[in-house]
């Protein structure tokens, strides 16, 4: 596997989009109970981390290019190239979440609407990312499964990172529970979508004819990565189970969620997504 820059880029940008979305949602919830200053303090780490992750991701993507000096030409083919569209939307996304962070720091107020706008542009960007791989000649990428995997990172890793940054003072325990529940639902929805799409994906791979002319054997790589893919799925399940355990005792009485538990769940999700993405990019 030599696509580390793309692995880092896709994971970080998708995670950043998920953070922006849960940041927008959390921002609307926080505004009901906290002052503008408290709201700003609660959202500040998320509003800083989301653009930083996206910026690191975009920098990593430049490492993938063989001749980055021509990078400005990469926006010339928006009409037909998913890669051009993706670069355009990723830059726009970074601009919006960067602007949201800058405005927040200057005015000491949170801007959930800007985060929401950024999150929606980010979702479109993730769609373009999936379009790049679905419209290639790599059989293991040419399926709806790719979009499910990419959006899955948004709703698992992104939301979990968002919850990690938000679940601290002055956010109230009930709101922390609601945020963690949102991330849990994101993880469950992702796992369910993955299970729904997998039978069709495996059928698609079984039917696919692999030409001798391709310089890689994607199906062989897919079969070879089975242990890693299974481990990634098991890690996501473990994270879901942990989040259920964290939320269960607080069902009836409002207690503070153990932050260490949320961190462990986030690390499990991170490992699951990184493993799954490593398998995705392994072609040899």
């Amino acid at each position, binding site marked *: 596997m030599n696509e580390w820059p793309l692995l880092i880029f896709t994971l970080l940008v998708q995670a950043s989009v998920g953070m922006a979305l849960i940041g927008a949602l959390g921002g609307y919830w926080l505004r009901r109970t906290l002052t503008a200053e408290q709201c700003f303090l609660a959202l500040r780490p998320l509003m800083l981390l989301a653009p930083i992750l996206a910026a690191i991701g975009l920098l990593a993507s430049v490492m*993938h*290019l*063989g*001749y*980055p*000096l*021509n*990078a400005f*030409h*990469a*926006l*010339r*083919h928006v009409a*037909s*190239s*998913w*890669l*051009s569209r993706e*670069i355009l939307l990723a830059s726009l996304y970074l601009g919006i979440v960067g602007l949201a962070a800058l405005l927040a720091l200057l005015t000491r107020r949170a801007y959930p609407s800007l985060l929401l706008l950024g999150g929606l542009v980010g979702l479109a960007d993730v769609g373009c990312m999936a379009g*790049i791989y679905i*419209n*290639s*000649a*790599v059989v293991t990428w040419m399926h709806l499964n790719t979009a499910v995997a990419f959006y899955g990172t948004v709703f698992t890793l992104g939301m979990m990172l968002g919850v990690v940054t938000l679940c601290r003072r002055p956010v109230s325990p009930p709101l922390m529970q609601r945020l963690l529940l949102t991330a849990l639902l994101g993880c469950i929805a992702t796992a369910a979508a993955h299970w729904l799409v997998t039978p069709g994906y495996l059928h698609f791979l079984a039917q696919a*004819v692999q*030409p*001798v*002319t*391709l*310089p890689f054997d994607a199906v062989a790589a897919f079969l070879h990565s089975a242990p890693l893919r299974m481990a990634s799925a098991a890690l996501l399940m473990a994270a879901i189970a942990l989040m259920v355990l964290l939320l269960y005792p607080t069902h009836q009485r409002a207690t503070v969620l153990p932050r260490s538990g949320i961190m462990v769940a986030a690390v499990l999700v991170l490992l699951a997504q990184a493993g799954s993405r490593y398998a995705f990019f392994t072609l040899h």
Partner: protein
Amino acid sequence: MSTFQEFPPVSDRQLGFFIDSSRCSGCKACQVACKDKNNLEVGRRFRRVYEVQGGGFIPTGNGGLRNNVFAYTLSISCNHCSDPVCTKNCPTTAMHKRPGDGIVRVNTDKCVGCGYCAWSCPYGAPQLNTETGQMSKCDFCIDLQANGDVPVCVATCPLGAIKFGPIEELRARYGTLSDVNGLPDSTLTRPNLVVKAHQGAQQEVNNDE
């Protein structure tokens, strides 16, 4: 960055290759000549000779065996497709199809070296030049054609198994087959390629009929 040299169209009609797979011995002289002419390092091959094999032994039910074993070689380069996915997916428009002769080339003044064309082409034609960090591919020996010469693979083949010319003429003379075992479905990119199939190359098609 390698210098990109533009050439005027060498034909007013789409050019293509004819590969006589039934005649190809797999000597790889075309591949070696191409590497030599383009000064390609180990691993980079604008023309590639593949060996395709398949079939097996089937019991007749009367104590005998019937076989449909086949193995043949197939010389493939860029097919300068009529609907090239590489040009459609290229974000910079560096990968472009020329008007007139229809040759697909990489403009290295624009290429960013993202490699998306390599992931897009089902024939494996675009390949990374690790020295310049940009993509490279068969350009139909446009420099030779501009001087009235023939592509080096065509000139080299000792069996005369590779021919080139306007694809309409090649199809009128040799037929329209470009789907054989081992190659991708021609409807994906509409390659300007005509193949005279070796025995077994159309095995699956025949079995279906």
